[in-house]
């Protein structure tokens, strides 16, 4: 376990919940604290100490939630850790971390376009980003489980 992440767990920002195969440590956090967590990561690990690999958005239809997994690769050992949070499916909003970590541009724009999550404070969000215009006009978010495309 990485020491800096361990400190964040002790401070209550993250909660350890298990692993994703193969051996990726999984932590949960409340979505209001996203900016606080990444500020702490930047402070403790440094700009060169980690990179944001991707954000995976998944529509969990039965819980009426959208799950966001932030995959962070901690250098120099390249240990991948997963920071997981949930947002409400009917009102999916979370703060953007684009100004802290520019690497969030591609995944945030993509998730906004495909799942409809609003990253507050990201000026680059736009539709259509990837999906065709006719889907945008109909207000369809293709990766939602109830979307028929």
């Amino acid at each position, binding site marked *: 376990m990485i020491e800096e992440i361990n400190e964040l767990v002790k401070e209550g920002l993250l909660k350890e919940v298990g692993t994703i*195969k193969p051996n990726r440590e999984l932590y949960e956090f409340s979505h209001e604290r996203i900016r606080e967590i990444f500020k702490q990561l930047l402070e403790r690990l440094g700009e060169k100490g980690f990179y944001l690999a991707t954000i995976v958005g998944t529509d969990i239809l039965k819980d009426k939630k959208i799950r966001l997994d932030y995959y962070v690769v901690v250098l120099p050992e390249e240990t991948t850790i*997963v920071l997981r949070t949930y947002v409400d499916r009917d009102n999916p909003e979370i703060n953007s971390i684009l100004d802290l970590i520019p*690497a969030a541009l*591609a995944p945030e724009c993509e998730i906004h376009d*495909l799942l409809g999550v609003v990253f507050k404070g990201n000026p680059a969000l736009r539709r259509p980003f990837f999906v065709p215009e006719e889907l945008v006009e109909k207000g369809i978010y293709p990766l939602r489980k109830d979307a028929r495309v």
Partner: protein
Amino acid sequence: MQGCRAVAIDKVIEVPYALEIPVGPQHPALHEPILLKAYADGEEVVKVEVHTGYNHRGIEKLAEKNSFYRDIFIVSRVCGICNGVHANCFVRAVEQILGIEPSPRAKYLRVLAMELERMHSHMLINAVMAEIIGFDSLFMNIMRDREYIMKSKEIVTGNRVSADYMIFGGVRRDLSSDKIDKLRKLIDRVIPRIKYYKKLFMEDETILKRLVDVGVVKPSEATLYGLLGPVARASGVKIDARASDKYDAYGEIPFNVIVRNECDAWARMMVRWDEALESAKIIKYVLDHLPQDGKAVPDERRLPRRFPPGEAYTRVEAPRGELIYYVMSDGKPMPYRVKIRTPSVHNILNTAKFYIGYSIADLPVILTSWDPCISCMERLTIIDLRTGERRKVPMKELAGGGKKWVNPRYSL
């Protein structure tokens, strides 16, 4: 007020690169059209916008609608040039969920196929770079020698490009000893050629003039912007999923992670040459040490038909950088979620900043140095703001420009 001088800009250059990239899901990786809108003040690029969405094929959604077995072939079609790594990453994610492991021989064969892919991909982008800077004969020479690698890949997988080589629990074709001898001969023929091209990139004045100190990415920027693969390694960031995750047989094979500290377009191309040589070494090691135990090709009738619930997140070092698959199964024959993150999505979308301050003629060089697999970035529109006149210039002529001698037809 100081700093607020009125600057008269009456001409804007808009560069729509129609870069044809066929990927997939959400990612412009290869041969899908993408538009880079560059705004230039004189020769200097002041702003670049990346526009996407021309060829979104919805592969992630498609994968959710098809069975795990069909998905192997669907994800291979995400990207033409690195179909093996895509299939490998997906197959390994599902193997994690299933809890099965391929035989050592299959693992070595997977490495063999993926390293051949890395070699021809790196040769391709270096050839394209030669073409972009106007060195067409070098482009043709590299492409000719690349054919040896394509032939090798055909010997191993049965096809030059789209291999469909991976299957849960192994690979789909074994390698006989006479084929191994053929492969050795082909690789031995390519290695001196790559060394020669590397020397050329180090010594040729035209190449150095166009590439050195162009598109500089500082190490801290490489991590902040999430740049991957040879782009990050050329900026001194030592990341390589092969070395850190040790997937398949990479844990047993000795190889070096190539890192350079020059941070410019030239360093990125040099990293690719060195990696191609390193791949050749890995291939020779695999051919010498191919394990005899275990069946490489699993019996397809006995492969599992039920997939337990679970999730897996696998990384693989594709030619362009870290490729990621996240696969979630809820116990049904079809995956609940497949997320694909190709390296190009970061290397293209997040790099708009790094064009700023360079000349228009450097733009194709910088774009090529990300290895975005350019096929048809062919047009440039010049708009004269005074007359509203628009004219189109082919990308190649633009690239031939250079800082010092610009064709008077296209100079402002």
